[in-house]
């Protein structure tokens, strides 16, 4: 019944679905872990209970998001084999150790100390608890380091040779790990996760201010988020520009698709909007700004920019996806910078926490970071097609010898499962937000005992507790 479907296409859709679902959670938890560490540090330093209350509210949200990130991440570690076994066989010598290092240096660290972070309040000293939070935050960053290194190597491979047996062999590990696109991708992604978290936190803070609930906590949330918007959002623009120039050097076809440029030309215009038509090899209804593309990409009004027609059609990425995703990402980035400017102006007028329209604005931008992160990954991953390892191995050659039927069925199962899990996760996070900070007494399952320990003290081993 599924035999008419192309197994490679199904495998690609499945991978796109499971990885897109997965990236939502790290995009949030990497930033959140670092923010929680800052909160706990402020709390230990100032003794201000507000910070502890905010921490306790967000650590529960962190736990839900982290749990979903873990379970969807375990899936990823098997997908290389189930759906892309030829790729796994050929690239295992190079990529395997990077993923091995990710498990050894990051996953265990996060998983083990998450237990202390969530359940260790009454079991370890405050300093040790703070250490656990910092360790979890470091774990998320180390994990990002390795997986982005592996991804970047697939985009800009180097430090390897092709063996006589068709397998890839490493020749220089430092060149593999620190491949040309890695530093840019790493910086761009980490900053993206920080901004994603900041806009979620800021949006929730604005929501409380609008509802006139938990106002003390909300000021801290919105205030800290806006510090990020003011300073980090413009930084991201700079990092994105550097990343783009790096891509221009190593993957010019991707940049041509992002720009919607078909003809190689000097003084290339910036296509603001338009409809890329791959059939006709042209961008229809284009609204252009003359020479701006050359200026941005070559920092010279008359610089030459390569167009997509430089590559044969079977070497071109699907242009419309890349073109539009790029505009969504950049558009959201601009809105974030604008938010920072507005926050600065309102702050100087001492109206940051009391301007209703700004509260609506921040609430509306709550999910913006997720959309931008997904759009950014669409740009970079679709933009490198038709290659899985750029210039070395095509995606079509990488697939497992598995028929369409199991792939289609498992895809359907993943869609249903993730739909249920995601729906429930969002629902429970929404409920935690509705409850708000400083709601210790109403946490479920406490049976009337405030702030209970997870494990009863050893002294009560034979005590009169009954079940």
């Amino acid at each position, binding site marked *: 019944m599924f035999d008419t479907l192309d197994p490679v296409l199904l495998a690609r859709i499945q991978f796109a679905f499971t990885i897109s679902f997965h990236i939502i959670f790290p995009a949030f938890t990497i930033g959140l872990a670092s923010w929680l560490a800052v909160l706990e540090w402020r709390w230990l330093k100032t003794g201000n209970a507000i910070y502890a209350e905010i921490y306790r509210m967000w650590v*529960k949200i962190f*736990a*839900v998001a982290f*749990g979903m990130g873990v*379970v969807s*991440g*375990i899936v990823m*570690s*098997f997908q*290389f*084999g*189930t759906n892309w*076994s*030829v790729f*796994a066989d050929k690239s*295992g*010598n190079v*990529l*395997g*150790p990077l993923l*091995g290092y990710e*498990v050894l*240096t990051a996953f*265990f*660290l996060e*998983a*083990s100390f998450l*237990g202390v972070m969530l*359940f*260790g309040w009454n*079991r370890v000293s405050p300093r040790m608890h703070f250490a656990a939070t910092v360790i979890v935050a470091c774990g998320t960053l180390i994990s990002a380091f390795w997986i982005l290194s592996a991804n970047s190597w697939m985009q800009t491979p180097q430090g390897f040779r092709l063996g006589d047996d068709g*397998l890839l062999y*490493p020749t*220089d*590990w430092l060149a593999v790990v620190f491949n040309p696109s890695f530093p840019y991708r790493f910086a761009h992604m980490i900053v993206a996760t920080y901004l994603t978290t900041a806009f979620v936190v800021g949006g929730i803070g604005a929501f409380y201010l609008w509802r006139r609930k938990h106002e003390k906590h909300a000021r801290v949330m919105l205030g800290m988020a806006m510090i990020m918007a003011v300073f980090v959002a413009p930084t991201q623009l700079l990092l994105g520009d550097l990343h783009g120039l790096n891509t221009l050097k190593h993957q010019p076809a991707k940049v041509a698709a992002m720009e919607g440029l078909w003809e190689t030309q000097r003084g290339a215009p910036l296509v603001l909007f338009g409809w890329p038509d791959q059939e006709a090899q042209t961008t229809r209804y284009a609204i252009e700004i003359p020479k701006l593309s050359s200026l941005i990409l070559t920092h010279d009004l008359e610089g030459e920019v390569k167009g997509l027609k430089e590559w044969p059609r079977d070497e071109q990425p699907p242009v419309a996806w890349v073109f539009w995703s790029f505009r969504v990402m950049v558009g959201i980035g601009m809105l974030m910078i604008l938010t920072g400017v507005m926050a600065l102006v309102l702050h100087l007028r001492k109206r940051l926490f009391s301007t209703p329209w700004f509260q609506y604005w921040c609430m509306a931008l709550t999910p913006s970071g997720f959309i931008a992160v997904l759009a950014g990954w669409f740009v970079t991953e679709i933009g490198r097609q038709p290659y899985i390892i750029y210039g070395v191995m095509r995606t079509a050659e990488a697939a*497992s*010898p*598995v028929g369409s*039927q*199991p792939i289609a069925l*498992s895809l359907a*199962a993943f869609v249903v*499962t993730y739909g249920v*899990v995601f729906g429930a*996760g969002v629902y*429970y996070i929404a409920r935690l937000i509705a409850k708000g900070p400083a709601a210790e007494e109403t*946490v*479920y*399952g*406490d049976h009337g*005992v405030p702030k209970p*320990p*997870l*494990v*009863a*003290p050893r002294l009560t*081993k034979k005590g009169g*507790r*009954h*079940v």
Partner: protein
Amino acid sequence: MFSLEPFLDLPLIWYSLIIIAVLLYVILDGFDLGVGILFPFAPSDTCRDRMMNSIAPFWDGNETWLVLGGGGLFAAFPLAYAILMPALYIPVTLMLLGLIFRGVAFEFRFKAESSRRIWDYAFHFGSLLATLMQGMILGAVVQGIDVEGRSFAGGSFDWINAYSVMTGIALIFGYALLGSTWLVMKTEDATQDWARKSASYVLGYVGLFLGIVSVSMPLMKASIRELWFSLPNVFFLLPIPLLTAALFVLIWRDLHTGREYRPFFMSIGVFLMGYLGLGISLWPWLVPHQVTYHQAAAAPESQSLLLVGTAIMLPVVLAYTAYCYYVFRGKASHESAY
């Protein structure tokens, strides 16, 4: 280029490391999957809260050993990974789906009110499905996989047959034994009494299935028969079944004399013996009777690089894992987590 090949038998070291990672996974996630298997049979919701709390700080770390097993196989033996994963496409996917449902249940259950029952069952059936699939994967791999050249050449449903179903059910009882003896150690009062009863009940089934697997393995392959029953070998290998039998007797006695800690560690002993027996029978295959660990090994440069990291990081990982178990020592309460 940096390589430890001249000094070390790298494939052998990595084969051992993967075996150890999988063993640690089986033991550690085994007990928390076992708790999930027993979950709906507990006498009260308070019991269930305690059961959940007894594993909540650990399950995440435990499951990471599975990622190390999978990731380590990819890194050290990419060929075996590339053959096994497509061959086990459906059971691996079902196992992952089971792990997803049980994993999210930890967080959702304590936050749910009216829908709590749903996550109780998600936890139970997720654990059950993941365990059944792990057991069936074992049964399928033991029987052998069709390979042509460097890839899997069989059908999508090769992994289902009476034997793999049997090993699947066997593992459910095995994990239930680990789970129930864990609860004997980590809970008290009514929960502990119930766990003790469950453990002695499950123990009989574990013995039965261990017997079936032990008899069937030599019957399946002449080489395995030869290995176990040829003359000098039989004396070297005899301690394995004898020790296993002794462990069963000791667990039974301890469960009926009120011991709290020993049954769990002796259940681990039973798993160790079974695993050892299996390992001896399957040596030196990674994909049984098709690909040995030597044939599947990654380039020495790759194995060397990761070995350096493993030599440094694995002791560290084990140390802080032990620290986390130490932090959460003692009996689990039924109260809210955090």
